[in-house]
């Protein structure tokens, strides 16, 4: 081999060292061998062909290097945080528990003064009065979503880093959902539209529909937070829709049960609060369970290979 070719091969070998360590261990020797064979064959064809091959290889290498590093980075970022095989059943149980507990805390908070006394003292005008009312409700609601994220991460024994990411993103996005829903109630005819049906034959339908919309708005943001935290942007979009579906169904069913229970008349003598607690718990179990199932089933990792090298989906 001429000095020029030895230099080229040496340079190529050096460049191969820029691949991630794992990739190098597996393919570097082979790649070097194939490169040498390709160069030798091109040499026999002529100088022009040789230069073309070298140019082509050198141009392609950085692109593939970058691709490989991104792929490794994605795996490190999303996959190493999980310690064992995903078990959808565990995710269902933990999701159901997480959301149920969270919603019950919201119920408790709605009847209790969760902030210090000075918080509720008036004298700041209407905007601050709204804030005083809104912030405790929004915070408890947002923390509920964060709790769901923590429980789901716990179901896969995720590392603290992933759990924290899920908690923060889900809490933050749920906070937005709460504010949006509150905005709808205060500043749009949304509430008025539903309240006109409350005394008629369509009361149950209106109540269930309103609950479903409430669930869908919250599910959209909570799901987005979950997907974003555990699988990146694409997963975020997909889980936003899955969250919408899970919460929409969960809340619609939960409230239907409550309304049917009330309509049956068996609750006479019991205050509505315990019934609401049970109904809210059912909403949480259903919505959290469905979201947990969807997440566990797809492991929240979208197109990524998660389970012991067994592909879920391929992007090839």
């Amino acid at each position, binding site marked *: 081999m001429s000095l020029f070719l030895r230099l080229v091969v040496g340079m190529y070998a050096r460049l191969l060292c820029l691949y991630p360590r794992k990739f190098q261990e597996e393919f570097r020797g082979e*790649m070097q061998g194939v490169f040498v064979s390709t160069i030798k064959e091109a040499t026999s064809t002529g100088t022009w062909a040789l230069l073309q091959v070298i140019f082509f290889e050198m141009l392609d290498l950085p692109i593939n290097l970058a691709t490989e590093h991104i792929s490794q980075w994605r795996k490190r970022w999303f996959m190493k945080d999980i310690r064992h095989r995903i078990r959808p059943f565990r995710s269902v149980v933990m999701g159901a528990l997480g959301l149920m507990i969270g919603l019950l805390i919201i119920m408790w908070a709605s009847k209790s003064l969760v902030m210090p006394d000075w918080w509720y003292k008036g004298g700041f005008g209407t905007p601050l009065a709204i804030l005083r009312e809104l912030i405790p409700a929004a915070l408890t609601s947002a923390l509920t979503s964060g709790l769901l994220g923590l429980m789901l991460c716990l179901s896969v024994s995720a590392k603290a880093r992933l759990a924290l990411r899920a908690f923060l993103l889900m809490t933050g996005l749920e906070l937005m959902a709460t504010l949006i829903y509150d905005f709808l109630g205060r500043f749009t005819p949304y509430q008025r539209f539903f309240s006109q049906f409350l005394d008629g034959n369509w009361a149950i339908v209106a109540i269930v529909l309103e609950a479903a919309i409430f669930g869908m708005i919250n599910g959209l943001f909570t799901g987005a937070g979950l997907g974003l935290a555990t699988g990146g942007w694409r997963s975020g979009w997909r889980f936003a829709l899955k969250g919408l579906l899970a919460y929409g169904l969960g809340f619609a069913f939960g409230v239907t049960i409550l309304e049917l229970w009330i309509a049956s008349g068996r609750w006479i003598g019991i205050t509505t609060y315990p019934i609401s607690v049970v109904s809210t718990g059912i909403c949480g179990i259903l919505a959290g369970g469905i979201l947990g199932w969807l997440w566990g089933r797809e492991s929240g990792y979208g197109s990524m290979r998660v389970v012991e090298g067994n*592909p879920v989906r391929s992007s090839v």
Partner: protein
Amino acid sequence: MKTIYSEDFQPLSEMTLYILVSLAPGPLHGYAIAKKVRVLSEDRVILSVSTLYTILKRLLEDGWIERVGEAAEPDESGRPRKTYALTERGQRILAAEKTRLRSLLAIFQKQSLGEEP
């Protein structure tokens, strides 16, 4: 675990398809795959070494191909050449892609014969 069907992977990228087709008759080492792809595509698809191994790595991870041993002749530096072969999953995916392409071709043929609107 979600069930994945062969059709879920369609359409395959051209390079992936050529690599799978080149491995269909039997196991090949990396250099032979690159050469065969070039021949099959009549010099239209030329795989650089880095692209070839990026795709091979992905196919290995996805379980479409597997390493089956070492070729009889070593490479230029005397290292044994590892050979790759299609797995059962790879064969299924390739068969599904063939079916898809055949049906497309049938449509084109019908259109060229004026049988389709």
